[in-house]
């Protein structure tokens, strides 16, 4: 896996690659397991990132709606 944390978009792209590759089942078992593990890690990362985004959006909405109403 890469040394830097991927952006959400990069992670999703990589995730899709992995799914396609695993779906075709064209790798040897060791590589497949490595991909599988990477895929699970990316799912976790994307999920966490999405949750962060969602949280941030609702926080921002609260913050700036308040400002606008004042």
């Amino acid at each position, binding site marked *: 896996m890469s040394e830097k944390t991927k952006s*959400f978009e990069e992670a*999703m792209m990589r*995730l*899709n690659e*992995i*799914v396609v590759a*695993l*779906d075709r*089942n064209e790798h040897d*078992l060791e590589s*497949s*397991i490595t991909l*599988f593990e990477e*895929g*699970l890690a990316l*799912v976790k990362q*994307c*999920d966490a990132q*999405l949750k962060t*985004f*969602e949280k941030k*959006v609702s926080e921002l*909405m609260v913050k*700036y*709606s308040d400002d*606008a109403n004042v």
Partner: protein
Amino acid sequence: MSNVVWTVSTLVNRLKQTIEQNVAFKSFYLKGEISNFTSHSSGHWYFSLKDEGARVSCVMFSSYANAVDFKPKNGDKVLLRAALGVYAMQGQVQCSVFSMRNDGLGDLYLQFELLKKKLFEAGLFSDERKKPIPSYPKSIGIITGRETAALQDMLKTMTLRWPIVEVTIYPSLVQGDQAPRNIIEQLIKADRNQHNVLILARGGGSIEDLWAFNNEQLAYTIEALKTPLITGVGHETDTTIADLVADLRAATPTAAVQLAVPDIQEVEQSVHNQLKRLNQIIDSELNKQRVALRQVQTHPVFTQPHRLMMSHQLQLSNYEQQLSQQTKRAHRLRVGLSTQQSQLSQRILSFTNNQTVRLARSQDLLIKRIEQKTLNSQNAFGQTLKLLNAFSPLNSLARGYSIVSQEDKVIRLINDIDYDREMKIRLFDGTVRAKAMKEQSDE
């Protein structure tokens, strides 16, 4: 001098052609005093225009007469715009009038039209020269009369619509001979102060009141401004040169403010709507990503990861099966082999046994035969011995017979005898040498 005789019609028609073909007569300004004014029931006006030395008859058709904003009467000094024609029936030149103004204003109107034409030709009114007006100005300069109602109206409107703007007022004379110069000075001063937009305004008044705004130098000053300018001079119907050169023209001072600044309530509403829209967009984008991620998460690759190994397992069990088949085959072969082996050893054993038996039998037989044979031989030998004894020459010799031999050859016939050679005669008790002598044969 020509000798040709013209008819009256020819003369008048030639006069008509000459006049009507002359471009200068097609549209011109004419000033004078009205006399013999008649308003016909059709709405057309007929009158003469005169000055100290001449008069000319005029007609103004109803479509033009209706647009005149006063009712002319005899003795009025007016300014006309007209075309010259010939009324053949009367043999008269006649002005066909398009517009009429009171001549008190006649000069001003003419000057205005001339200046407008000149500046138009110089390109001062062209749209390409107009600067865009900023949507949300922070700083505005207003050039207008000190402590006028127009200024109060403008400030009130400004406070209602866009209270967050910073307003600087540049008081100026807005009528009289000094006004144009004063306006120009204030415009130039305001232009240096980095306002987002300038407003040049004056409340309503007569055409003479507004005359300061029809100034050529002012027009060029406005054209050279770096700051966008909005004008609001007079009422809706008034248009001044300043209005024409300005980047944006409003009908009144208040209207100028409305064009200069947005309505803060509308802007707030718009900001609110934008915020809502923004939230919707980001929400839908997040949703989209959430759905995409869920799709990946619920993909069989992740929900049934054993599928990853399925093909490998399948292959493995396949190999196992093949391998076990090979083992079974080997086992079968081994069993077959050992069966054959035992069969072989049994066969060999029985064969050996048979052979041993046969051998023993043969041996017995052989022994018996040999014994038999020996017995037979012994019997035969005894008989032979007896026979031998019977035939033995010794017996014959004993009985008196003898054996004649020559050179170890037994002589049986006379012809065998060699008379020259010695003979041996074997007798019962020994041998003697003798010699034969020839004798006459009986036979």
